[in-house]
């Protein structure tokens, strides 16, 4: 199981670790292995770039939603009545 001279098992093993790699959660050894592999394997490189982009898009699209009118007021009243044991 190879493509472009690469071991499919290696690609699959890498596939499982891709998020940890993106999150800088791998130890130095594992990190170096991933880096060496994606330098040589264009498929895994693509896989990495698209996953990294997915994470970036998720983060960047997380903006504040406008609070509904009077919601703050509603919350204040809710807590006031809870505080009074009503």
């Amino acid at each position, binding site marked *: 199981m190879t493509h472009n001279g690469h071991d499919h098992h290696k690609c699959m093993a890498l596939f499982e670790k891709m998020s940890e790699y993106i999150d800088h959660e791998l130890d130095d050894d594992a990190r170096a292995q991933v880096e060496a592999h994606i330098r040589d394997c264009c498929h895994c490189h693509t896989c990495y770039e698209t*996953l990294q*982009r997915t994470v970036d898009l998720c*983060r960047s699209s*997380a903006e504040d939603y406008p609070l509904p009118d009077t919601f703050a007021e509603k919350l204040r009243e*809710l807590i006031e009545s809870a505080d009074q044991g009503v």
Partner: protein
Amino acid sequence: MIRQEIMSGKKTIRDEDFELVQAINSGRTELFQQLVEKYQQKLYNFGMRMCGEPRDAEDLVQETFLNVFRYLKGFRYETRFKNWMYRVATTTCLKAKRKPKHAPDRELSLEEFMPGEGDLPPDQAPGWAKKPLDQLLNQELAGHIRKAIIELPKNYRMVVVLRDQEGFSTEETAQILDISVANTKVRLHRARLFLREKLKGYFDHDA
């Protein structure tokens, strides 16, 4: 002040809400409104990300603050107040009835996202992974991402929202959800792979 700093592993965390929570718990309950004002926007965002509908998000925020108000006396500073509040919010969210239009609760397997031998990923990253982010992200795409997140099964949606949108670390997310770090990582990875498939579909369709 006692235990203003929380020991978490070797790290010491400062809780910016310590004094306020102490004051509320010593009887100044009127100060709770300050916590509400401080966190209502954050919790509403979380509610919208998890539920997708303003009414459901409002319900989640209200229920969460009521529960925080009720149980604050039992808060023991084992974690930051904010993280504990998210724990209350996620528990509240998990208890809420599942919306019929939401994704069914199911497990995502790694295999369903693995490229088969016949369809390897392309040897070049597609345009949407290459373009500068600010040229790519617009309202339409943001809306599509929101929709894709809602389509995730709840257990996965929660992890990706806490990690990639609310900005919690893996350890914090695990603690908030009361699951292991390993399980958090597994769920996060599969959730991201799911979202990547949705993005691929979106851009393929668009191209």
